[in-house]
């Protein structure tokens, strides 16, 4: 990961691997005008794990609304989708 990407939140997607997860999640983010600065994805024992660093600054939607949309998508696709402000990771993982 480069040091210069702009992002203010982290989206994590956890669930059973299947066709169309990335397409489904990125479509919703695009609809909300959220830029994806970095994306990584692995599959551990059939468990799909995706981490996206995103920038919601240019989105016209409030953080609450974005969170709600992702939650609805998660329920539809049977995935756990979270969006969290990056400061929580800064707080816990950096001195």
């Amino acid at each position, binding site marked *: 990961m480069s040091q210069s990407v702009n992002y203010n939140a*982290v989206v*994590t997607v956890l669930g059973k691997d299947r066709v169309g997860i990335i397409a489904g999640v990125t479509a919703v983010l695009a609809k909300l005008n959220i830029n994806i600065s970095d994306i990584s994805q692995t599959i551990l024992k059939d468990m799909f794990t995706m981490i996206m660093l995103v920038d919601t600054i240019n989105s016209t939607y409030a953080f609450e609304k974005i969170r709600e949309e992702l939650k609805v998508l998660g329920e539809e696709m049977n995935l756990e989708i979270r969006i969290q402000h990056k400061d*929580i990771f800064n707080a*816990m993982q950096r001195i």
Partner: protein
Amino acid sequence: MFENFEILETINMFRNQHLDVRTITMGINLLDCAAESAETACRKIYDKITKQAEHLVDTADQISREFGVPIIHKRISVTPISLVAGASDIDNYFCFAEALDKASKAIGVNFIGGFSALVQKGFTDSDLKLFDSIPQALAETDQVCASINLASTKSGINMDAVALMGKIIKECAELTKDKDAYGCAKLVVFANAPDDNPFMAGAFTGVGEPECAINVGVSGPGVILAALKEVSGQSLDKVAETIKRTAFKVTRVGQLVAEQAAERLNVPFGTIDLSLAPTPVVGDSIARILEEIGVDTCGAWGTTAALAMLNDAVKKGGTMASSHVGGLSGAFIPVSEDEGMIAAVESGALNLEKLEAMTCVCSVGIDMVAIPGNTPTTIISGLIADEMAVGVFNNKTTAVRIIPVPGKVAGDKVVYGGLWGEAPIMNINLHGSTRFIERGGRIPAPIHSMRN
């Protein structure tokens, strides 16, 4: 920029290890609500709390959603009511408890602490009125918590108050016997009570505190337990280091939430309480941490040493993670609220005497312990006196929250539900000290209190 494992570790702590912020507690000064008319004073109290804390719950919920951090409780602590109500021309303070209860419900928090008095050196007239009002206040309100500071290292132990509390605890039990003496779960007595404790039932806003402040209590036994499973069989140096590192991360969550809450509510940040607070959920237990460290069952020989190390390592890690640490700060060992503690009592490994020893090195004391309902008042006072002495003579906070459940005997069990958990009725040594308790007076402050 983060590595994937860092992000997943954080997610995992919230998702699988029960990491949460246990409480955001807003401390509110009520000294300016004193009035000659109790009715006026109560109205001012209600108005002030509902105005000051109007956005507390919404703000906490918003922070919770943005950061993905569960925030379990939103609470209020106020100036000890004995200090506020003293100006009023009234003998019974129940109306003050009612005002607090109504305000608490109006703003949507789940508890309000501060039906309190500080009597370590003696009673004011107002303190005595508050004492008399406690049983009714706890029986007839839902969300009000009471606490009394009976002793301090600077002042010694007010043994008249210790004797009186034995009776009041029994009265509380009797008035709430249809709910298994639930009133006693909302009443705690302290030695060296902190002014900025965010945890119930002992939260109140001390007189040196600002007009309003945000104090946050973190939790995290499940996270510590999971981290210790990774260093199974390794030396105690490694265990201490692992606890410290994990406590740092846990506390940083609290610090972030506290800063955000303070900023959004435009109220000063007070302190972070570094306590490891268990819940009855499996995997969120202090006792299980001690067992992971290596004692067979909580209460076995070695338990006090393991707990001392845990408590100390939590503080060391947490201190570096927060700009202001306060409250109780250490490991809590409530019996009914900790699945592993309950199991330890039921297996016979943990008794009250061992629990007392454990309180010498942890942050609170004999907490959420149910005993037979027919326990004499002087036995309860004796137990309190011992616990106060542990605090006063070791220069630390100790507390007693004991529940003599009417109609129950050792081996029975009472279920309070939710975070209060379920309490096995513990056997209590009935060899008493009535003559000691009945002497009254004050146990002088220890020699090491004279530091000037």
